[in-house]
């Protein structure tokens, strides 16, 4: 097993072998999760704390279920409601929690780099559950697993990532992951929603959905992050939907077997047509959610293994 990382902070730090190791282990958990008895005990006795400094329902639930199925003691902390409001700094919060001897910290934070900062201050393994516009590694991994299962491979695919790239940590992690696994990546969206010099990331950039979708194997839609927009990035949602929303007509330009993905939560009628999202022949959106639990179980198991091996009391 090649995965020798202490934390999972981003895809940037992972080698292709690391990615494959996580995905291979995830397959076992997909099988386990489909059984009636979904329990393993690889995290037995370990404490997992989910610290979410930003609202999340699905990611937090996914990490919680993943931890519980692996036998960890899982605690959720809704950080917006807690000491942060009382003026405590991120580092103090981290040190306080650290003193309670957690083994796995799952952290989401609205600021890029905040999870890296926190990871420097604690003794346990830290999983980045999304930091600002930076990275969301487990999302990219679950997307990779979904693609690999649907397409039978995770290389030499044409993948289009569409929409609000600028505000998306999902896009950054996916660009890094799919690039490392040697896929062709196209980014499609209005130029106001493209990060600067994004063309230097080994991607092709399109501002025309119809050109961009030609012959792609995977269409990955992103949520329009209205809450992160501090100015007019697009003229209106209806114009956005007209030009960049995914509907059957635009999807017809992709390969006939192209799959449609979305990290959720969806804005139906803004970036994706509702009927299309529910089309079980094209949409793998529900599979992504299922893969999410498996990938998080695998990632936590690998990190816990390294954590236990690094402890002085390890035999």
């Amino acid at each position, binding site marked *: 097993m090649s995965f020798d990382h202490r934390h999972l902070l981003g895809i*940037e730090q992972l080698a292709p072998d690391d990615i494959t190791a996580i995905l291979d282990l995830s397959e076992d958990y997909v099988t386990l999760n489909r059984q009636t008895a979904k329990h393993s005990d690889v995290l037995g006795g370990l404490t997992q704390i989910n610290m979410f400094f930003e609202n999340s329902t699905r990611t937090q639930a996914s990490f919680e279920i993943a931890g519980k199925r692996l036998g960890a003691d899982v605690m959720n902390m809704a950080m917006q409601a807690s000491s942060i409001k009382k003026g405590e*700094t*991120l*580092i103090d919060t981290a040190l306080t929690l650290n003193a309670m001897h957690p083994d796995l910290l799952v952290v989401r*934070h609205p*600021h*890029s*780099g*905040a999870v*890296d*900062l926190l990871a420097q201050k604690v003794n346990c393994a830290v999983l980045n559950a999304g*930091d*600002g*516009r*930076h*990275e969301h590694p487990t999302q990219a991994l679950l997307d990779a697993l979904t693609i690999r299962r649907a397409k039978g491979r995770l290389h030499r695919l044409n993948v289009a990532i569409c929409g609000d790239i600028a505000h998306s*940590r999902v896009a*950054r992690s996916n660009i890094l992951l799919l690039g490392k696994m040697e896929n062709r990546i196209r980014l499609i969206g209005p130029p106001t929603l493209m*990060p*600067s*010099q*994004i063309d*230097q*990331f080994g991607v092709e950039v399109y501002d025309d959905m119809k050109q961009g979708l030609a012959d792609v194997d995977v269409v990955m839609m992103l949520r329009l992050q209205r809450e992160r927009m*501090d100015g007019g990035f697009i003229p209106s949602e209806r114009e956005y939907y007209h030009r960049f929303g995914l509907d059957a007509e635009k999807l017809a330009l992709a390969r006939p077997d192209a799959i449609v993905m979305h990290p959720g939560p969806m804005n139906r009628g803004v970036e994706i047509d509702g009927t299309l999202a529910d089309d079980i022949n094209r949409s793998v959106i529900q599979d992504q959610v299922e893969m999410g639990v498996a990938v998080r179980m695998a990632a936590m198991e690998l990190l816990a293994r390294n954590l236990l091996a690094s402890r002085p009391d390890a035999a």
Partner: protein
Amino acid sequence: MSVQLFTNARLIDPEAGRESYGNLLATDGRITEIFPEHTEFEQMFRTRNISLEAVEIIDCENRCLAPGIVDIGVKVCEPGDRHKESYRSAGLAAAAGGVTTLVTRPDTSPAIDTPESLEFVTRRANAAGPVNVLPMAALTKGRQGREMTEIGFLMDAGAVAFTDCDHVITNTKVFSRALTYARSLGALIIAHPQDPGLSDGACVTSGKFASLRGLPAVSPMAERMGLDRDIALLEMTGARYHADQITTARALPALARAKRNGLDITAGVSIHHLTLNELDVADYRTFFKVKPPLRAEEDRIAVIEALRDGLIDIISSMHTPQDEESKRLPYEEAASGAVALETLLPAALRLVHAGHLDLPTLFGALALNPARRLGLDCGRLSPGAPADLVLFDPDVPFVLDRAMLHSKSRNTPFDGARMQGRVLATFVAGTPVYRRA
């Protein structure tokens, strides 16, 4: 009468643009004569009626003797945040860094915007500090960009320049009036060229690195837009203007054009923008968060070339103390600024060691040009100038340990950095204020 003779010195003379080995005589705090190598001192003193016993001889051992650094734009956190930096600690740091004149910023809390608060600063500075302190005052009240300060009274109280620091005056009517009024008094205005709309909320320079890190970014064009606007206002008002930091290649042609057109404009750059680039931020290292943000390597090189060619006039430390609490935060939330009084010279010597500049040119930017711009008679190694001097070894290597800094705040980006060259002694008006143990 106090007489000092600095012997065996490698004299760095920015005014003449050359360096030479020789000896420097100072009397009562002023430079009186420069002698060539191998001077016969006994006879020389006899002809000048100086008794040899009264002369303090400082053997420079062939190390560099240069005019002390004049540092425009130093933040001392009095009043308001004395725990970050006091006049005492800033003075010690300056002395240890070879800075003999601190030109302080008014962006304290409250801002230095009245003659009364300026007098407080002057009193504190004179009581506590071993080096010269010249205060700047705010250009608008509370640095809010709405009403100009009492520029005349503040000048009478000793303000050497007027600046709202990193607050850009967005209302051009207010700014043009302040410039016009300042011109009538001959006051120097220092501004921060930056388009405030474009740079709002940004903490890094846009580009590949910013996109990878997912941080809010500003185009380098915002600096040129700010400078272009200010140049237009200068054409309109004819004021004396200094741009605190020009850090991008894109802004340089505008600056060159303005100088060619005869506007009374000079420009500075911080030592950090000359020696670091955006990639140094690496994994969100907040000690590298400065304002404006660190730039691309091409910008850094372009700015060094502009400095060498004299287009950029002045190097500043932009010394900005911040405590650990304001830096140990996620990058976006962390405070900007870095301490630099003690690292200014070693960092600047990197430019010399890299072959970009010679020592006289460097001290032109560190001492002579800032002194001239402020109308001071220091910054020179000429008879008549104050004996504000720095003795340094340009070659000695060391690894910087921030725990050894004299500043109360130790937010330096150079912690652990390999540097070459350090200050051996600093003199203010002939009096030693620092000697390296």
